């Protein structure tokens, strides 16, 4: 069976991306502390808008059994009415080879600003959720998790 070890390749690629890239000061101000590639991905999504902290709750287990499928849920504090609702939720990671994870487009018809999915995490790291509101404002939340690598792999 030809089962390559995804995580190891993932990690190698992540290392390459983590190498610093100079960023405009405005971007660094949006998400201080996040790696350059993550900041860049966030900037592509939100432009130069200010990102506020709050309103977004990211549920991520503190310790995951396997980084291949990490359960994740995002809830946003919003009444979800015709006049005030969540337009989109974007997910980013710090140490995956590609920081973008997914974007979810909601609207007043959702009724509840809440989604759940399963993601891949190449290593222990922070996941960032950024929410775009109907009034054009952006809000963010993040969570950290420790990824346990399996002890017995199929191939060595």
């Amino acid at each position, binding site marked *: 069976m030809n089962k390559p070890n995804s995580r190891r390749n993932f990690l190698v690629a992540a290392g390459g991306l983590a190498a610093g890239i100079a960023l405009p000061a405005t971007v660094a101000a949006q998400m201080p502390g996040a790696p350059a590639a993550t900041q860049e991905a966030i900037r592509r999504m939100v432009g130069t808008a200010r990102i506020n902290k709050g309103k977004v709750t990211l549920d991520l287990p503190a310790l995951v059994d396997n980084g291949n499928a990490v359960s994740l849920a995002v809830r946003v504090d919003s009444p979800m009415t015709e006049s005030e609702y969540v337009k989109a939720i974007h997910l980013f990671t710090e140490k995956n080879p590609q920081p973008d994870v*997914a974007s979810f487009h909601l609207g007043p018809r959702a*009724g509840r600003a809440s989604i759940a999915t399963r993601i891949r995490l190449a290593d222990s790291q922070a996941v960032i959720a950024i929410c775009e509101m109907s009034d054009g404002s952006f809000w963010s939340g993040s969570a950290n998790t420790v990824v346990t690598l399996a002890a017995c792999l199929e191939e060595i």
Partner: protein
Amino acid sequence: MARALINVPAAAKRGEIIEIKALAQHNMETGYRRTQLGGLIPRDIIRQFVCTYNGVEVFRAEFHPAIAANPFIAFWTVAIESGTLAFTWTGDNGYSVNESKSISVG
């Protein structure tokens, strides 16, 4: 063969907020993995998931390779009227799957 597993309540009260869960069968090949001989395995993922309710889009998602194999997604929508919820997954290499579920709203 089973391409997707979708859970929608068969019936709901008007105005009720219902949860929808959808699981698609797909390896979500990241494009970052290598074979044992060292060759890069090309990316092959689902790129987009759309849910419409009687023809109107109520939820949409864009996926990148970090979405786990056999993508799972749970979201909510307001049950406004009886009808059909249609689900479409599209992705690399012409991947396209359509499924639908009917709902009775009283």
